[in-house]
């Protein structure tokens, strides 16, 4: 692009002057500018913005780009493509997260325990072996038609 080297992101700022210059470059206040910690992960001097998705941005404000809820020149979050309105939503929920987790885990564990118990101790109505007519299907099973089929009785009186 035609931007000069000092307008593009660079290495982690070490001196206060570098921080002030980086804040000015990213159109932020010096007090607001907070780079990612210098762990060698490759962030450089990119600002660390709050991890809030674009679902939370004001829908009624006149953004320059209404679909992205983003203004021209505003510093873009590192994970901006994750926080767009088609994807991750970090809006506050009606029920607290820990309550939701607790309810879900209670339900899931109850269902799994019941299914497990059902596998270990199955219970069904009493069954017997299947009974077939015509002398236990003598002719269908390939028995000789000229011979007398063996008589099969399934009952006792």
């Amino acid at each position, binding site marked *: *692009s035609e*931007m000069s080297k000092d*307008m*593009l*992101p*660079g*290495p*982690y700022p070490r001196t206060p002057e570098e921080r002030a210059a980086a804040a000015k*470059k*990213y*159109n*932020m*206040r010096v*007090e*607001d500018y907070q780079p990612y910690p210098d*762990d*060698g*992960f*490759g*962030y*450089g001097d*990119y600002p660390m913005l*709050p*991890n*809030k998705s674009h679902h*939370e941005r004001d829908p009624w404000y006149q953004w*320059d780009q209404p679909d992205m809820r983003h*203004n*021209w*020149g*505003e*510093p*873009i979050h*590192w994970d*901006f493509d994750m926080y767009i309105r088609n994807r991750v939503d*970090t*809006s*506050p*929920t009606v029920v*607290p*997260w*820990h*309550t939701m987790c607790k309810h879900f885990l209670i339900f899931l564990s109850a269902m799994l325990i019941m299914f497990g118990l059902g596998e270990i101790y199955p219970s069904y109505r009493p069954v017997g072996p299947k009974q077939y007519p015509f002398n236990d299907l003598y002719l269908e099973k390939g028995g000789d038609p000229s011979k007398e089929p063996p008589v099969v009785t399934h009952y006792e009186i």
Partner: protein
Amino acid sequence: MAAGPGPSAGQQYRPNAFVSLPAELDPDTYDSSPEKRRAEAERLAIRARLKRQYQLQINNPDAPAVVENPALLRWVYARTQNVYPTFRPTPKTSFLGAVCAIGPFLFWMAVFKMDRDHKEKLIKEGKYERPFSVF
């Protein structure tokens, strides 16, 4: 005796990495001090300046075909071309690199080897039924 009314929903709410605190429950948004107001005013000034620049560009009769957004260009550059120059091998990055790059190889090698040895053992014992293949 019954206990008093329990904690309200607002008091029970705790934000975490997946959900954020609404502004109504955040005491930070109430009772702005003069410093906060000055900070807000400065932010508004920056925002207004950027908006003015943008409006001048798009309402220009000789408008250029594409109005570039330097913030977007910086974002793209930071995520693509600025990662390697700013990368530094530290214990954390080396460990993560080993886990993500070499770990899957070792894992799948172990899985396939164990699976094949198990099948071989079953075949030697005569318990494995060779599947019939039409190819």
